[in-house]
Structures are given as structure tokens and as C-alpha cells.
């Protein structure tokens, strides 16, 4: 992997050029005292020193509401697929969120390739950044392996602490992307320093179970009293799913324009913890109890997706802990409960 180095001023100037160019440039900005991903209008608003962004950048690859087809009403032969045309670059993604994108890549393209996801993904450059501050509830190193963010990243930044960033070039696209910047070959000691800085900020929380042991750890715990105990406090509001960088379940709905001349078929984010998620025609709810929905969510995070895709459905960002009002959604707490350690 090629290693470059760029001064902080050089990166700011580079992002300034990009913002004025044809790509949508997405990055973390500060809004009302919180960090959030947004389209940049001014390079100076880009923050790379954030602890954790409110949402992951998932929304720019898998939007909360996305058109799949356009059509004339009641005329299936008029259907046309709708694809995103807008090229974009997301600059400043923590390793956990990149591992989440690697998981989404697999979910949407391992079998039955989803061309709508791919249309966005193909036009998106992903630039990672190793965190410079601890997250409030981060346990990423318990959930991902160090190489997994590199399955999705085109390039990775490491703050060297000396007013410059190391730039790891991961893909040809990443190389091309930084080719117009002032980044130059890294200084002799930069590689060793970058490796130290990558692990300098420690996780705040540690999972009590090794990631690869999670599927077997959860086997046979489907009827554990922890699910009912937590369900008693659950509002089934879906906040844990909404902030999750890996959740990708969706609903499909049709909407007609007020002219009644054309319409769109959309997909919208959905959440397995919501009451109607598993309701079938005729009204039978196959996951009626909140306890069953809470269990399903956790099993999906820590077992089902790991077994199916080889990457976990949880990347240890800790957002669900912050989002959950009764504080029942945090996977490390649930695992501790299951171990009898208390949350």
C-alpha cells in the first residue's frame, strides 16, 4: 500500500478545490454542537477530529427514501429503473463505518446484485480517517478486524499529530483521487508513526465475547429471560435501527404524482423492531412480541449477518446506546446480561 503525506493546510486546500468541482463532497460538520455528515459547501466546515457522527454515512449510499422505478399509473410496460447519477466523495469515515459499508457491499452484491445500490456505490469515493478522539461508547475493535475497513476504503487518513496526515492509498481510484492534491511521498518515519497513531485512541467499551465466538455464544439463548426484561422497557421506536450503520432492511411503496401522470416506486428504511415489520397479508404478525423483535435485532447484529456475509452486523460505533431512550439496545450490555454479569 502506497503511503503519502499531506499537510493539514494542503488537505484543506485540496478539499476546497473538490467542493468547487463536479463531485458532491460529503464530510462531518458540526451542527448545533453535534457532529453529522452533510454535503460540504465550504471546505473549512469539514471536521476530521470528531468523536462520533450522529449518523453514519450510510444514508449517502442507501438513502432513507430512494426511487427504484418510474412509471405511468397502471401501465407496467412503462416502468423504467431509476439510478443515481451523482458522483460523490465521502471524506472522513471512521474504520467501523467503513467496515459497515463493506458489509452493505456484500449484502447488496454477494447474491442478487442490487443495481440501485451499485449505481451510488460505483460513483462514490470513500476516504477513511482513524479517530483522534474516543467515542462515548465505541467498541469497534471488539467487532471488526483491522483489515475489514480496507475492503471498502479507497484511501485512509491518519492524523500524524504534526500538522499533517498520512494518506494510505488503498485503491487505484484513491490514487487518482489524491493525484490532484499536494500529497507527496511520506517521510521516512511516517509509516511507523501512522501505525502507532492508528491504535493510539482506545475503545471506551470492550465486548465480553470474542467476535467470532458470538454466533455459538448466542446459540440456545433464544428464550433467555433477558429479552423479556429488556422488552418491558422497549418503546419499539426503531431509533436503534435508524442510527445503525449496518441496518439495511427496507419497505417498498408506490407514490403517484399529483398530476396522476407518473409515479415512482420507492424503497424506504424499515426496522425489524417496529411492530408491523413481520405482519403478513391477513394480519398475522410473525414477530408480535417486542421481546422477539429485540432478540431478532441482536441476533442479526451478532450472528445471522456474520454467518451469512462473513462480516458482523454491528461495528461497535455505540450510536444505538446514545439513541435508545430506555438504554436497552447496547449489544455489549446485552451480552453481559446473557453472561449473567449484569449490564
Amino acid at each position, binding site marked *: 500500500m502506497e503511503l503519502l503525506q499531506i499537510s493539514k493546510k494542503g488537505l484543506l486546500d485540496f478539499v476546497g478545490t473538490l467542493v468547487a468541482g463536479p463531485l458532491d463532497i460529503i464530510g462531518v460538520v458540526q451542527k448545533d454542537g453535534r457532529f453529522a455528515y452533510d454535503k460540504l459547501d465550504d471546505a473549512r466546515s469539514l471536521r476530521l477530529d470528531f468523536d462520533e457522527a450522529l449518523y453514519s454515512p450510510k444514508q449517502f449510499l442507501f438513502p432513507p427514501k430512494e426511487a427504484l422505478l418510474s412509471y405511468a*399509473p397502471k401501465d407496467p410496460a412503462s416502468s423504467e429503473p431509476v439510478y443515481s447519477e451523482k458522483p460523490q466523495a465521502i471524506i472522513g469515515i471512521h474504520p467501523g463505518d467503513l467496515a459497515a459499508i463493506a458489509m452493505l457491499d456484500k449484502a447488496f*452484491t454477494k447474491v442478487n446484485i442490487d443495481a440501485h445500490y451499485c449505481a451510488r456505490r460505483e460513483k462514490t469515493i470513500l476516504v477513511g480517517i482513524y479517530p483522534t478522539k474516543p467515542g462515548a461508547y465505541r467498541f469497534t475493535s471488539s467487532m471488526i478486524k483491522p483489515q475489514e475497513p480496507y475492503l471498502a476504503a479507497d484511501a485512509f487518513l491518519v492524523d500524524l499529530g504534526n500538522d499533517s496526515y498520512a494518506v494510505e492509498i488503498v485503491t487505484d481510484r484513491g490514487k487518482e483521487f489524491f493525484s490532484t492534491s499536494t500529497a507527496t511521498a511520506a517521510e521516512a518515519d511516517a509509516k511507523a508513526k501512522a501505525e502507532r497513531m492508528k491504535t493510539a485512541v482506545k475503545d471506551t467499551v470492550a465486548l465480553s465475547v470474542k467476535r467470532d465466538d458470538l454466533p455459538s455464544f448466542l446459540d440456545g439463548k433464544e428464550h433467555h429471560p433477558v429479552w423479556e426484561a429488556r422488552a418491558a422497557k422497549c418503546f419499539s421506536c426503531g431509533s436503534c435501527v435508524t442510527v445503525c450503520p449496518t441496518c439495511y432492511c427496507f419497505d417498498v411503496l408506490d407514490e403517484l404524482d399529483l398530476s396522476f401522470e407518473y409515479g415512482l416506486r420507492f424503497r424506504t428504511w424499515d426496522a425489524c423492531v417496529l411492530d408491523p415489520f413481520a405482519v403478513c397479508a391477513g394480519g398475522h404478525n410473525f414477530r408480535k412480541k417486542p421481546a422477539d423483535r429485540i432478540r431478532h435485532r441482536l441476533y442479526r447484529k451478532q450472528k445471522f449477518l456474520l454467518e451469512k456475509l462473513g462480516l458482523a452486523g454491528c461495528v461497535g460505533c455505540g450510536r444505538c446506546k446514545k439513541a435508545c431512550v430506555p438504554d436497552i439496545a447496547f449489544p455489549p450490555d446485552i451480552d453481559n446480561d446473557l453472561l449473567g454479569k449484569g449490564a
Partner: protein
Amino acid sequence: MCEGCGCQHQESLYMPKTATLVRTNPLTDKDRFFEFKLDGQDLGHKPGQFAEISIPGIGEAPISVSSSPTKKGSFEMVIRKVGKVTSAIHDLKPGDAVGVRGPFGTHFPMDELKGKDLLFIGGGIGLVPMRSAINYAFDNRKNYGAITILFGCVDPSQRLFVDELKQWGALQGITFMETVDRCKEGEWKGNVGVITTLFPKVKNAVNPKTAAAIVVGPPIMYKFVILELRSMGFKEADVIVSLERRMKCGVGKCGHCQIDGVYVCQDGPVFTLESISHLVEAL
């Protein structure tokens, strides 16, 4: 090759083909029969599979195919009016168009079942996908041993394919029995009671060592039927079920149809009992 995730590009999974409604008629107060025709091609389904039927501007719904693939040129469905999509489909007239995606999912393993006796157990609209396999077996009669069909529904007004049921009952070498859960006085001359009340009447005629059971019905039916089949001596590998779930996308993405970690639209809806016995949400 996609430069983002390295995948091979494909057309949209959500694009429907266009089918035309050939004929439709009511079967019960809420179920209608539909025959659809795709332009110049067969649906290409196998018995037990489903397709997503849509009306642009209204929405899309997963519907079981009811005709056997041995019937060429068109395919048949029975659609219960339960929501806005199915209500709109009920309003269609011959010549109207619908969108079709699929066929999707697993199918009744009719090739693997060759040489076996077949015990079909259908409850309510479970008969709809089962009819695809029954007619397939009839059209390939020499491939299968004794065929026994048990069908139960809530009351006589909910019987489906009434003319066909009459024919099945008259066929040589086929045992066909029906029951209704309840009926008004004088309305029904046959068996009254849940479907398991038919089991004592066929127990001696069905050999669990040479037969496979194909079971499709409402969720409550499976538990009792499977208990009966176990007590008869059926092995779990010889009990084949089709499970209903909310198969919204049909392509293993949207998540609604999952049983534990299994996507029913991909790995189902047809399963052997053996393959789902470890899943806590299956039955």
C-alpha cells in the same frame, strides 16, 4: 465490473415484466381466481414458487402460483382481497396489465419425490400453491405412487376450486378427503372438524416409509399436523412445508420475510421439516 464494490453489474432486480389478465372469476367472498399471460413466454416457475404482482401506482404483493408448470402459455393465481394491492387486482378486467417479478423461492422437490407416495395436507388458501404440485403430480402420474389429498377449510363457503375438488374425488387411484371446521345445519354432508380429524381415516392407507407429506396451511395448522405425522412415523426429511412470511422484495434484501437468519423468499417458502427444526421462529 463495478469500481465501487467490485460486483458484476446487473439490471434492476425490481423491474417487472408485463402480464395480461386472461380471465378471472370469484372462488369465495374474498378469493378470486386469475389467469395471467406473459408476452410470448412462460413464467418458468416450479410448483410451490411465488411471484411479485404489481400495479404501478398502487404497489406490489407476493402471490403463490397455483397452476402447474405443465400448463403452458399462462399461469394461474388465487388472490385474497386483504389490502390495497390485492383489492386493486380484484378490480382488474380481462385485458388489463399487471407487473410480474419472479418466479422466486424454492419449490416442492417433485424430482426428488419420484417413486414416492404423496400425502398432500392443505388448509384454507394453503391449497393454492399446493394445487401446483398436485396437478404436476397428476400430469406426471407414473412418477409417483399412491396419492392422498386432505383438504380442510373453515366452512363450506371457503372451499376453493370446487369443480376441481369434485374431479379429484372421482379420480382412480387418488384418495381425496375434505373437512370443514364448522358448518350450518344441513349445509355440509362431509366430515366436520379440524384437518387432523381426517388422519384416523387415512392412517392405515399411508405408509410413512414410502410416502412424503406436503403440508401447506395457516400457521396454527402446522403444529397439530406435524404432531400427527410424527406419531404416524414420518421422518422430518419426508415432511415438506411451505411457510408464509411477508416477502416484500423477493430477492433476499428487504428483511421482512426472515425466519431467524433465513430469508424465506430465497431459502423458502418450501422447506423440509428437517431443514427448519433448529429455527426458533419457524413454526
